[in-house]
C-alpha cells in the first residue's frame, strides 16, 4: 500500500482557508485518496475521497494533480471547531482492496481565534 507523507502540524486563524498537502509518490492506478478527520477521544470521520482532478462536498475540497503523486485537502473559512487531526490515506479499489486502512501520524490543525 502506498505510504503517505503530510505535515505533522499546522496553525490557522478563524475564517481563513486551510490547505493540507499529502504526498503519495507510490500511488497505484486503482488507488483512491481518502481523508479523515479525528477529534480527541473520537474515532476518525470520513471527510472526502477522490481519484483525480477536483472533488468538492459540503465540508471540503480535494485537489489531485494529473500525476496523482500528491493531493491537497482544502477547508474553506475554518472555525475553532475544525481543530482536529486530519489523515490522508491511499485506499485501493477493486480486488486490491484488503479492507485494511493504513493511517500515518496525520496533520494536527490548530485553529486560533
Amino acid at each position, binding site marked *: 500500500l502506498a505510504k503517505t507523507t503530510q505535515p505533522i502540524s499546522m496553525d490557522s486563524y478563524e475564517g481563513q482557508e486551510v490547505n493540507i498537502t499529502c504526498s503519495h509518490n507510490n500511488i497505484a492506478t486503482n488507488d483512491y485518496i481518502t481523508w479523515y478527520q479525528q477529534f480527541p*477521544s*473520537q*474515532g*476518525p*470521520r*470520513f471527510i472526502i475521497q477522490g481519484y483525480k482532478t477536483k472533488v468538492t462536498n459540503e465540508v471540503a475540497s480535494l485537489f489531485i494533480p494529473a500525476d496523482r503523486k500528491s493531493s491537497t485537502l482544502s477547508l474553506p473559512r475554518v472555525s475553532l471547531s475544525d481543530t482536529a487531526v486530519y*489523515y490522508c490515506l491511499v485506499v485501493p479499489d477493486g480486488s486490491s*482492496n*484488503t*479492507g*485494511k*486502512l*493504513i*493511517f*500515518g*501520524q*496525520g496533520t494536527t490543525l490548530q485553529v486560533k481565534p
Partner: protein
Amino acid sequence: DAGVTQSPTHLIKTRGQQVTLRCSPKSGHDTVSWYQQALGQGPQFIFQYYEEEERQRGNFPDRFSGHQFPNYSSELNVNALLLGDSALYLCASSLRLYGYTFGSGTRLTVV
C-alpha cells in the same frame, strides 16, 4: 440511524489481566474492523471480521483475538495485558469493504 456503538467507553485493568471490548456495527453493515490508537499516533489495524471469520490481521500478537456474532456485532479480547496495551481501541464497521464508519472507541488504561 444508529452509528457504531462501543462499550465500555473507559476501562482500567491491571497488568496480566484479560479484557473484552464490544462493538455494535452501524445498521446495514456486515464487516467489523478493530484498530489500536496509541497517544499521538494514527490508528493501527488489528484485524477484520466478516461472516464470523477473521479475514485480515495486522501485526499484533496472538494475545489479541476477536469474534463476530451472527448479528454482526464483535468482541476484541486481549489476554495477559501489558502496560503498552494502553490505548484507544476503535471499531469500524463497513458494508463488506466500503463505507467505513468508526465508533468513538474504548479508552483502555493498563496499570
